[in-house]
């Protein structure tokens, strides 16, 4: 078994975090630093005719103002993705067209934040207001065109039609849906609407920049993607990559919200022009309004099936609201299909169609779940409907029809990220065990039987109870696109520097990666000095997204540590005068196999290699790409109580069983599950963006948006059920995203179990629930 992997190792930064010692971006301040404030558009759609900043420039303490007048008009995408990005180049850092309330008008750098804020108020902007599109269903083909003659273009060869407001389009077919649907004896068709969502990382977005002693630009930023920041800032600010260093210090949560290049180019330009440090920290309201959010979605399901429950044909159609810009518009859309449809791979005829449209509402982006969150409510309700109609138990149904080890789905190849996907067979899965164990832990069979809309338990009662479930899959990294790398060197005392480009968002990846290296080198986690996310000092990594860090960066670390192991064994063998096949690693030593009497410690080995003979630095680097994206699986069971007088849904119990392969760190893995579940719950029950008739977000504070406190969390049971993924480090797959997807579908199914009615609109806020209950 494992010694350091699959152990509840404490986070290596833990004590520094809970004693307040660690530094986040806003904790860095520099001598002579400028403070930046950004003016955001109050209009959903407007042309700026003129910006008069003369009054502001006269103010004592104002140093620089950036706007379309003095910033080169360079198209880019704010999406922090691999290059070339699959998101369209449709954004300007400061342009003269405002496409949503919160778009960038201009930025001021001043001696103090107060002066910068005051200067913003003195800037006179003359707008020509345009009629906006504030409804995703009215965008395609509208006479109002959101990206008109601005040169917006896709960076990769994909469908893109700005004249029709289409930011992205995806289609995939397996078998012949139309034919199979037509001849099916039973049919279901319905819609499901998913609202906007906000990440609500407690640390707001922030960036600080300065010039180092040789005139290079250093950016400290709240980012999940330091290497993409370097590349994109270079493009937008026209500064060579060689002159830019990006550092991610501790990060106060990301969830996809910080996979976006928004603040960095602004401070970069301020520093580059003034030669002074510059800091920009967004207020909570700016984070809500101006950064990125979960796309609004409307999905449509068409299912053709037989009385025995056999599904002949399933069509998932997704309409996505990209907002003013197309950040992640294509890839989130593709994932809505690719992370759902392979789950029941025995359905022979599958169709996925999707379209992302521009509107003058806030811009969507990456958000934990990434399309799967939006697609599962429709998909899993459809399966529940088929089972209800055919008198089948849905847990048993999933067990029969779900994808198994050694099996594949044609969807894997049909749907990629901006290009064709990658065919793969499922290696590891404990999905069937997850279904069984979850059913047991939640007392599924008894409760499903006890409840029900016509049950004695519920009939005539004000408070009705129900239980619902969902089975899910996600992915682990983007196959053949994402790359991670690691560097390790050995120190005199037998310790190691482990430098990784991977980005710890607070998930504990620095610790998890050290555990993997520990396992290879059979030396305690404390032996590793982990340094991550610094473009000058750590090797490349695409960043923390697509559930990739443990699976992909972890494998890079493992490969790198294997290299180090070889070098250590070689030096050890030389010191012991033994041949390579006579030695092995044992607890921070090289020992002679078998008798273990002859030994040299890691410290002795490193000192020998540094000072004594055939000197060299024991060091290695390794890179990793993955040929596949093995899905983690999860099954969620939710028991609810519906107050039919008020429409308030109370979650009584939440049970989750999860297959993430080998949990490298069971405690942090559970933490990922619990955090995602609670985030998913609040998204399912009340989180939403409320807009004025002019497209302005109205609930832009934590108090108005509503975020769960500890007090609001229902009892949650989590059980990790191991499998072993051969392509992952020590059998690991991903875990961070999948568990946000369960609340919407499982609550919807539980609601049906309680009331006999289906839900078609998220979030399940009380007034809408009451409306559903009053419908006949």
């Amino acid at each position, binding site marked *: 078994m494992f010694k350091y992997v699959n152990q*509840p190792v*404490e*986070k290596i*930064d*833990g*004590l*520094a*975090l*809970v*004693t*307040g*010692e*660690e*530094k*986040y971006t*806003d*904790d860095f301040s520099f001598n002579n630093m400028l403070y930046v404030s950004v003016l955001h558009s109050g209009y959903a759609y407007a042309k700026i005719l003129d910006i008069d900043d003369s009054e502001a420039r006269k103010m004592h303490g104002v140093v620089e103002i950036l706007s379309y007048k003095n910033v080169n008009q360079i198209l880019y995408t704010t999406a922090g993705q691999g290059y070339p990005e699959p998101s369209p180049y449709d954004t300007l850092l400061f342009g003269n067209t405002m496409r949503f309330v919160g778009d960038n008008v201009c930025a001021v750098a001043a001696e103090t934040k107060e002066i910068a804020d005051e200067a913003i108020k003195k800037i006179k902007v003359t707008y020509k207001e345009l009629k906006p599109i504030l409804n995703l269903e009215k965008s395609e083909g509208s006479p109002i065109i959101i990206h008109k003659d601005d040169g917006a273009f896709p960076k990769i060869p994909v469908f893109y039609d700005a004249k029709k407001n289409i930011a992205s389009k995806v289609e995939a077919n397996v078998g012949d849906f139309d034919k199979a649907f037509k001849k099916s004896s039973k049919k279901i068709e319905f819609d499901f609407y998913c609202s906007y969502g906000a*990440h*609500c*990382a*407690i*640390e*707001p977005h922030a960036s600080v920049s300065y010039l180092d002693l040789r005139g290079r630009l250093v950016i400290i930023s709240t980012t999940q993607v330091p290497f993409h920041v370097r590349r994109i800032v270079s493009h937008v600010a026209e500064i060579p990559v060689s002159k830019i260093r990006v550092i991610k210090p*501790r*990060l*106060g*949560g990301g*969830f996809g919200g910080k996979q976006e290049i928004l603040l960095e180019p602004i401070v970069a330009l301020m520093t580059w022009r003034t030669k002074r440090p510059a800091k920009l*920290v967004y*207020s*909570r309201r700016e984070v809500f309004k101006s950064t990125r959010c979960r796309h609004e979605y409307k999905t449509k399901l068409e299912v053709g099936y037989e009385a025995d429950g056999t599904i002949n044909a399933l069509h998932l159609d997704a309409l996505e609201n990209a907002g003013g810009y197309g950040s992640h518009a294509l890839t989130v859309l593709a994932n809505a299909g690719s992370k759902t449809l392979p789950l029941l791979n025995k359905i022979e005829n599958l169709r996925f169609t999707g379209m992302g449209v521009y509107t003058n509402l806030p811009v969507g982006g990456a958000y934990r779940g990434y399309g799967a969150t939006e697609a599962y409510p429709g998909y899993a309700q459809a399966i529940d409907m088929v089972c209800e109609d055919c008198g089948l138990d849905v847990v048993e149904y999933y067990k029969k029809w779900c994808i198994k080890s050694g099996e594949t789905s044609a969807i894997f190849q049909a749907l990629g990220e901006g290009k064709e996907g990658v065919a793969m067979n499922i290696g590891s899965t404990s999905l069937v065990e997850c279904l069984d164990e979850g059913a047991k832990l939640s007392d599924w069979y008894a409760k499903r039987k006890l409840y029900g809309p016509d049950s004695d338990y519920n009939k005539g009662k004000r408070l009705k109870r129900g239980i619902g479930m969902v089975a899910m899959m996600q992915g682990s990294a983007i196959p053949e696109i994402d790359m991670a790398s690691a560097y390790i060197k050995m120190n005199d005392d037998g310790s190691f520097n482990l430098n990784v480009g991977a980005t710890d*968002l*607070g*998930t*504990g990846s620095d610790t998890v990666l050290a555990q993997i290296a520990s396992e290879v080198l059979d030396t305690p986690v404390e032996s590793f000095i982990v340094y991550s996310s610094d473009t000058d000092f750590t090797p490349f990594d695409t960043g923390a997204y697509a559930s990739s860090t443990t699976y992909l960066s972890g494998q890079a670390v493992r490969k790198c540590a294997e290299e180090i192991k070889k070098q250590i064994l070689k030096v050890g063998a030389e010191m012991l005068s033994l041949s390579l096949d006579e030695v092995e690693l044992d607890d921070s030593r090289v020992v002679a196999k078998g008798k273990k009497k002859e030994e040299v410690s890691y410290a002795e080995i490193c000192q020998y290699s540094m000072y004594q003979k055939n000197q060299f630095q024991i060091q290695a680097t390794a890179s990793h790409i993955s040929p596949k994206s093995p899905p983690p699986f999860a099954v969620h069971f939710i028991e609810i109580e519906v107050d039919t007088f008020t429409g308030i849904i109370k979650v009584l119990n939440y049970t989750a069983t999860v297959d993430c392969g080998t949990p490298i760190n069971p*405690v*942090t893995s*559970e*933490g990922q599950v*619990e*955090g*995602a*579940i*609670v*985030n998913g719950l609040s998204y399912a029950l009340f989180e939403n963006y409320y807009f004025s008739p002019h497209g302005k977000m109205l609930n832009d*504070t*934590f*108090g108005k948006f509503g*975020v*769960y*406190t*500890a*007090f609001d*969390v229902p009892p*949650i049971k989590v059980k990790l059920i191991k499998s072993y993924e051969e392509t992952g480090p020590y059998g690991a797959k991903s875990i961070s995203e999948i568990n946000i997807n369960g609340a919407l579908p499982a609550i919807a199914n539980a609601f049906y179990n309680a009331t006999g009615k289906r839900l078609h609109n998220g979030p399940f806020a009380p007034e809408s629930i009451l409306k559903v209950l009053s419908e006949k």
Partner: protein
Amino acid sequence: MKLEFKINNTSKALELLPNETLLNVLRNNDFTEVKCGCNEGECGSCTVLLDGKPVNSCQVLAMSVQEKEITTVKGIGTLYTPHLLQKTFVEAGADQCGFCSPGMVLASYSLLKENPKPTREEILVALDGNLCRCTGYVKIVDAVENTAKKLHSNNLVME
């Protein structure tokens, strides 16, 4: 101007403006362990203890607390001398991104100091001003419970 404040058991002269919040004054004077998540009293990242009770320092004008004892998270334990509660937070996995941790630790500390054997409900109430988006709170509440158990089984008094 400079005024004397009592912070973490020492007297300190801090630079401030008369309309500045305690949060700004603390952060501008190097107490960066006090975090700013919303500046509107709605997230609890900026929690400090005033005479032992948690408050949102962003909702307190610094001028009004000159005579009170201010405690930041470093006042109850440091990296070099961590408090039992802080160690238990790490042990339980209550620390993910850590941005809410100083506030969470202080709110928990204040509770345990007054009520060393809190019920789960009492813990939930005590933490109702501190938002966390990473953990789902499960392990944070565990950490507080575990600390209480350790205090009890080792006959320790919360200090």
